[in-house]
């Protein structure tokens, strides 16, 4: 058809703009039993930490109107085990692997970046400074522009891999954080992480989640996410991976038109494991029907129309 879908996210070459939201797609093997992972533009794997983490007590999720709360608490086998056990599986695919990292301290982030730099088979690092589900680090770094920049400066020094910064919507000004991390050497931005939320079980009269608060994701948050992409696109000249409630191509196109160069499918994978592939096919169809030759034409078009 002569349609160009390829995009470049801060040096990561993706054959199409569709990727996965960290923590919703495991390390890939799970959904590899349902869809062909080679269709994806890239895969962003589950958040990884220096040491293994058990995660939070259950219940870890709760359904909410058009959304869900999660408080997984970054359960993961640790970066060494990830490199040894999960990464080899992904090397069999023709697929850039982006590793999401989280730490308690600035040093943790830098160490992780260094380790992944040397691991081989990692296309880029997504720095999660916006996880609402852990006590230390996480959101704490993401909600203060200065601390966010500090993390990114250190990660930048520790690796030559492309650095994507994952931004939190739980801030007064997402633009302020975006500007600071751009200045600190980020190659790309991804947004949004989950909104801080909670639910109460009126029968037990207790919070539903074991961890009390959790992160809200899914279609419910989409308007907040599109707004974040719109605002940051106007202020910062870095490529954006847009996410938050994407379920279909129309949703993804909203993000692209708002300014996202790529999109990630998160919660929707749980509802429809074929969502990533369907988003991709729908974008192709939209481009064909509307005579669009290069996906780049659509990026941020809503600011110009």
């Amino acid at each position, binding site marked *: 058809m002569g349609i160009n879908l390829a995009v470049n996210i801060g040096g990561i070459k993706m054959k199409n703009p569709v990727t996965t939201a960290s923590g919703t797609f495991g390390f890939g093997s799970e959904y590899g*039993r349902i869809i062909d992972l080679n269709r994806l533009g890239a895969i962003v794997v589950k958040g990884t930490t220096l040491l293994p983490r058990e995660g939070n007590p259950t219940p870890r999720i709760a359904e909410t*109107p*058009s959304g869900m709360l999660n408080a997984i608490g970054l359960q993961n086998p640790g970066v060494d085990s990830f490199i040894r056990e999960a990464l080899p599986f992904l090397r069999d*695919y023709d697929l850039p692997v982006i590793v999401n990292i989280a730490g308690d301290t600035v040093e943790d982030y830098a160490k992780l970046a260094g380790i992944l730099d040397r691991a081989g088979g990692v296309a880029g690092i997504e720095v999660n400074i916006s996880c609402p589900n852990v006590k230390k680090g996480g959101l704490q770094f993401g909600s203060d522009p200065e601390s966010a920049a500090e993390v990114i400066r250190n990660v930048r020094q520790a690796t030559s891999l492309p650095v994507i910064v994952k931004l939190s919507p739980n801030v007064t000004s997402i633009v302020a954080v975006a500007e600071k991390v751009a200045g600190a050497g980020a190659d790309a931005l991804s947004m949004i992480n989950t909104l801080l939320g909670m639910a109460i079980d009126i029968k037990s009269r207790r919070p539903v989640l074991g961890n009390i608060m959790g992160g809200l994701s899914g279609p419910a948050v989409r308007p907040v996410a599109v707004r974040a992409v719109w605002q940051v696109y106007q202020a910062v000249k870095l490529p954006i991976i847009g996410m938050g409630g994407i379920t279909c191509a129309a949703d993804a196109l909203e993000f692209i038109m708002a300014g996202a160069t790529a999109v990630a499918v998160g919660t929707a994978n749980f509802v*429809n*494991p074929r969502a990533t592939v369907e988003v991709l096919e729908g974008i192709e169809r939209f481009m064909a029907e509307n005579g669009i030759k290069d996906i780049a034409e659509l990026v941020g078009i809503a600011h110009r129309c």
Partner: protein
Amino acid sequence: MIHPEKRIHCKKYRIVQNEEPVPGHRLMCLHAPEIAAGAKPGQFLHVRCADSTDPLLRRPISIHRVRRDEGLLFMFYRVAGRGTSLLTAKREGEEIDVLGPLGNGFELPSPGERVAVVGGGIGAAPLFFLVDEIMAEIHKRGADLTDEQDTARQALDFYLGAATGSLLPSLNSFLVRGVRVHMATDDGSVGYHGTVTGLLQQHLDEQTHIDRIYACGPAPMLRAIDELAIRRGIRGQLSLEERMGCGVGACLSCACKIKNFSGDGFTYKHACSDGPVFNIGEVWYGH
């Protein structure tokens, strides 16, 4: 590039039947040959209840039974809340979106073992598939046995417990030849007056010999079975329930506490992919 053996199906399947054998419960039958073909007892389906984003998530429902030759898959579900209510409105001929088969499934008993299967309430649903498979195996082997051996071995004890009796006689009627059903209700309306674990305990005290126990039901029941079986050295498996997001092991929401290597603490495993079936003695019930 999807490994055919590991393949999980995600498709809309036609509803062949969705009836209400007992008030508040439904028996749904789907024409889903791909899933029926590969399914094992103890595995489950992840069912989308609405085309809307509210309710958003799928609902896990066990495979109640299969008829492989006809490509049929059965679910037996209790109308518990919004998702299952929406399922009741689906009519014959409509389609529903099902992901499966999921989970590890039960390990079948070794030939000759005496088996007790224990279901609490709707927890009995997946055990029918297990009982069907065990009995099929027994009947197949039965052809080679003497009459005596036959009587001893062509049997399986199915313990069914519930709060009250309405569900039980109906469950009983689904069963096949050779299954001895023992019923218990908390209110004594049907069968033994007390918990199903109490009934099993009584039978064991009365010298009934059991080599292997399979159980599914509410958490307190599973805990009691676990203790009882460990105490008597009976092997077996429990099927656990946890809230699920993805159903395939990707989201890590369905964490279950499993004893760690040294046994003095726990580690999390995942009901959807490491389970829902775990060995007796493996689950961490805290201190």
